């Protein structure tokens, strides 16, 4: 495991942009490559610490699963769930085609 400072390339950043579902312009890519490289370089100082024997702590509380009683309770109505949808047909959210070429250049 290496935590030495990473330098990100604009290709790396473009890939992350797609994973993050963010359309990035060429100018965005250039700016973010520099900014993210700087930030990643900074946070890499954690590599100074030997944590081989330290378990990850994902949560500050000693969490345990919480069950509620198995009793039906009201949830949002369809109308409430759709009230802020950008596009819907009264019963479903409407989105562009899930499959197929986006046609982008």
């Amino acid at each position, binding site marked *: 495991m290496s935590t030495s400072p990473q330098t990100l390339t604009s290709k790396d950043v473009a890939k992350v942009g797609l994973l993050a579902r963010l359309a990035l312009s060429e100018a965005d890519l250039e700016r973010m490559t520099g900014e993210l490289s700087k930030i990643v370089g900074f*946070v890499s100082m954690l590599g100074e610490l030997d944590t081989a024997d330290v378990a990850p702590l994902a949560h500050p509380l000693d969490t345990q699963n919480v069950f509620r009683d198995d009793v039906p309770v009201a949830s949002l109505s369809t109308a409430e769930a759709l009230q802020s949808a950008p596009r819907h047909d009264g019963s479903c959210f409407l989105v562009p085609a899930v499959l197929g070429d986006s046609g982008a250049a």
Partner: protein
Amino acid sequence: MQPLEMSAVDLVAALRQGDITAVESATVFLDRIEATNGSINAFLAVDREGALARAADIDARRKAGKPVGPLAGLPVALKDVLCTSDMPTTCASKMLEGFRPPYDADVVARLRRADAVFLGKTNMDEFAMGGSNENSAFGPVRNPWDLSRTPGGSSGGSAACVAGDMAPVAIGSDTGGSIRQPAGLCGITGLKPTYGRVSRRGLIAFASSLDQIGPMARSAADCALIMETIAGHDPGDSTSLAVDVPRYTDLLDRPLAGVRIGRVPEHFAAGLDPEVAKGVEEAFAVLMAAGATVHDVQLPHAKYGIPTYYLVAPCEASSNLARYDGAHYGHRCKDLGQRTAGHTGGFESPLVEMYCRSRAEGFGPEVKRRIMLGTYALSAGYYEAYYAKALRVRRLIRQDYLDAFQTVDLIGGPVSATPAFKLGEKTDDPLAMYLVDLYTVGTNLAGVGGISFPCGFTKSGLPIGFQLQAPPLAEPLLLQAADRFQRLTDWHRRRPQAVGVAKT
């Protein structure tokens, strides 16, 4: 005394005794907001009609001898990160412009049941990401003490509206200091409770293992009053603690004799402004005069707090903010086909293109930066080196606190290294802005509680904040110590001149 100058505790008492009606009280604050919000920009939405209707209903019930809630008629401002079914909820983002949630946050529902009167929604850094309020999509908030300076962030609107007498009480949220730092920079009192003390249901999620809601007010006593309403178990938040809520207001007036306060020598390192250092040292002296003892303690991993936080928080944010997809609610790009110039293309499908373009248009630069950073740190090949590494260091940081609290009851120190900085001063350097959180992120990483309150002013008239941190669920001690300090000092009673001293 006029309502604008009264503490929340006194205002609730005056309302109960009939010295003032809820309508009169709401009107005074609404008028004040109308007169000053143009220069402060603390509110994104003001609900005059709703507030006055609510206040009239409370007055009518009280007059008829019907029961009213413990906060009956108290005006409260809500950070715009809290879902409200009757007001827009934007998180200061274009992504949620005009969004009307279908339900109230648990905190909002509790305040409603207590008969608080909501004045409106306060400005903030977009999705609570920032320390200066300059990341709002709807313009920065200005510090009432100096309109050219930041109020801090992300709860900058909540802090500025209390400092500017636009509300006696505001609700904020704190993921890495977002209640305590703006409270410090605006000269008010802000409590970040223990993780899980206040339900997060309906709090728009930023970093779920760090986020916590808390009160911002003029005094610790006012924060105690609000905590009695907002704290407590909520079956709708599986991380909310099923622990009884103390009567915080009854636990304030106790002597500090024998309370051990830790002082971390590293807090006074080179980066600390000398005037802030002086104010903080004087605060320790006041607490000692009140009977507390001060002891040096170590938080050996404190310097790793910022890098740990800026991995954990963006990773959680990148996951939480995946829900903004342009399909269910929030911003959606215009129809595909009308392509924006300069986009890089290469999307997998029309649906993915819609996601990517909606999110690119809806989120501001800092939110995008953190989503990108988190996505990178969680991606294949980097997860172990960044996210898992940060979680391991997080355990070391929490252990530092648990160890320190074996020998002291509280840890005191500065809340931020400098007084309020100029708007625009750090906007070109994201990393410099992240360092603003130096003294506050440890509290969230450890899941403990912290309070910030004013302990002096610089020569140029800017507030200096003092922070106390405490073991889990020691809010009574935090509030008691801050209240004792405020009985012995008058820093928290000072009012800014920049927008005029409150007069009615």
